[in-house]
């Protein structure tokens, strides 16, 4: 079994899920883009996750306490360094992000069982964020024919989350 650079971080996250400190998670952001399309520059390992809640309040502190207990250091913007990889926990907000997490696909990465956002949801999230780096990655996903992309599903997501105008704008540029 190969444990590449993401093996240890994924094992640690799975440990957090097993300990009920995280309810659910999936790989998102640049690493998910890298999974589906050509190599693209990113510095963060984004984890879209669901924390146990008490009413409407999200309390990530048990996760951070556990990571500190395991000896991992925190950097800027709550990134935690696990074996040289800066991990960022992004709570799945209601709506698109939550649905994306629900529909994430089971995969095995660096020998570890995990889940990753479906490429159509990843593209919709990037379109929604619309920062230059998101648009660049979206372009790589959309315009690479070897990416298996369900255009019907993507259109459906855009429709339901009011992203048609942004999509139109993206295609005009």
């Amino acid at each position, binding site marked *: 079994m190969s444990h590449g650079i993401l093996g240890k971080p994924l094992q640690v996250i799975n440990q957090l899920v097993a300990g009920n400190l995280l309810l659910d998670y999936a790989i998102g952001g640049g690493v998910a883009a890298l999974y*589906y399309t050509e190599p693209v*520059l990113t510095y963060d390992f984004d984890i879209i996750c669901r924390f146990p809640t008490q009413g409407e309040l999200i309390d990530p502190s048990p996760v951070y306490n556990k990571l500190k207990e395991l000896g991992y250091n925190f*950097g800027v913007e709550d990134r935690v360094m696990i074996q040289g990889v800066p991990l960022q926990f992004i709570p799945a907000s209601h709506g698109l992000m939550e649905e994306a997490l629900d529909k994430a696909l089971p995969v095995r990465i660096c020998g570890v069982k995990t889940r990753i956002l479906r490429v159509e949801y990843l593209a919709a999230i990037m379109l929604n964020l619309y920062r230059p780096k998101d648009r660049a990655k979206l372009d790589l996903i959309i315009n690479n024919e070897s990416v298996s992309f369900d255009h019907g599903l993507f259109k459906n997501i855009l429709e339901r989350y009011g992203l048609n105008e942004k999509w139109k704008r993206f295609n005009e540029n």
Partner: protein
Amino acid sequence: MKTESVSKTKKLARQKLAALPFDRKLDALISLQKTARDMIVASGRRFSGIVWRATAK
């Protein structure tokens, strides 16, 4: 080489890159991070990213 041919070659190269095993893509990502760091440092700017593995404990 004609422009059309260049664009076709580029398109095929991108498809091949996308089809690489994920482990190889991760190696390519780390190379990209190192290149970006070297270019930023060489231009006298401050590098604020993190090259993976460089800080592995």
